[in-house]
């Protein structure tokens, strides 16, 4: 029998995670699941990794900022790697599907960390949003 998991509980955990002092206790309280989806969002200035269950409910998230990096160091590949290791160790995944969004430098490092950590990857999907001739892009940057 599968219990229904309320979303309010997960939201509370996410809010608790915003405080630095409570971070260690959050590590304990994160749900442990065997199978899930790892979302990697790698922008040019930060890397955010969210672990969800197969239905898409958030179990745990981590970012370069919560791992202690600031300003330009958040964009480094090492920050991406530490973020990935932090997320996976806390949840204890065994099988996962990876969805990658964005083109930052933490993307590759996070993927390598996920692959090395022992999680079995069923597939890797690139879900970066792409317009099929949508609105006009912003103006060019002048250098």
């Amino acid at each position, binding site marked *: 029998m599968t219990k229904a998991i309320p979303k309010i509980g997960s939201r509370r955990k996410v809010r608790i995670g915003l405080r630095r002092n409570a971070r260690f206790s959050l590590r304990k309280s994160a749900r442990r699941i065997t199978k899930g989806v790892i979302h990697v969002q790698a922008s040019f200035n930060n890397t955010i990794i969210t672990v969800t269950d197969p239905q898409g409910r958030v179990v745990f998230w981590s970012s370069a900022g919560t791992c202690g990096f600031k300003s330009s160091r958040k964009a480094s590949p090492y920050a991406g790697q530490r973020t990935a290791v932090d997320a996976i160790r806390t949840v204890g995944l065994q099988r996962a599907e990876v969805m990658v969004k964005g083109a930052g430098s933490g993307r590759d490092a996070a993927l390598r960390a996920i692959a090395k950590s022992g999680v079995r990857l069923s597939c890797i999907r690139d879900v*970066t949003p792409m317009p099929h001739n949508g609105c006009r892009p912003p103006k060019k940057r002048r250098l």
Partner: protein
Amino acid sequence: MFTCRPLVSPPLPRRLAVASPLAPARPPPSSASSLRVVRCMAKERRVRMVAKQIQRELADMLTRDPVLQRAVLPEAALGADQYLSSLTTIADVELSNDLQVCKVYVSVFGDERGKKVAIAGLKAKTKYVRSQIGKRMKLRLTPEIRFIEDESMERGSRILAILDKLKEEREQQEGNEEEEDGEGANLSEEEEGDWDADEPDEEDIIYVK
């Protein structure tokens, strides 16, 4: 003798002035030489800004440009849009001081075949990439693009894996020592150990690009 020669021939007074130890003759050539210094380098900040922007443009092209996508992932032409056999990332961009040569370090996550295909495809599309950058960026000179494979990611991850093994071995030894004491002390000390172990690891691990 000296007064007669400069009057007779004009080129002679320059030589005599240079050869003679007279003080007022020296400053003019030094000032002329200082005025003639030619700068052929951009400032450091501009070099960094342009390199960063080229990196952004290239990463965006890898994501959105169908020609580059098919060059890097031949399966994309067959309709396998999202399921990737390799993932290509622009790891770093080095730009020369005169903004004319651009080295692009490409890191490919995947197996050996995927890596070879991706890098060969990128090198084949070098001229296309240069023309696209010329259109997207407003520069006086469009830099020459050179794609170089970047293996530092793999080496870095290997080293970190080794460090993790050493850390686990040390934790196992500490666990063996703690088991002799008792279970209650075990749990709290393990948590404290984990907390303490994180900080020295951060200090020890030095990531070198």
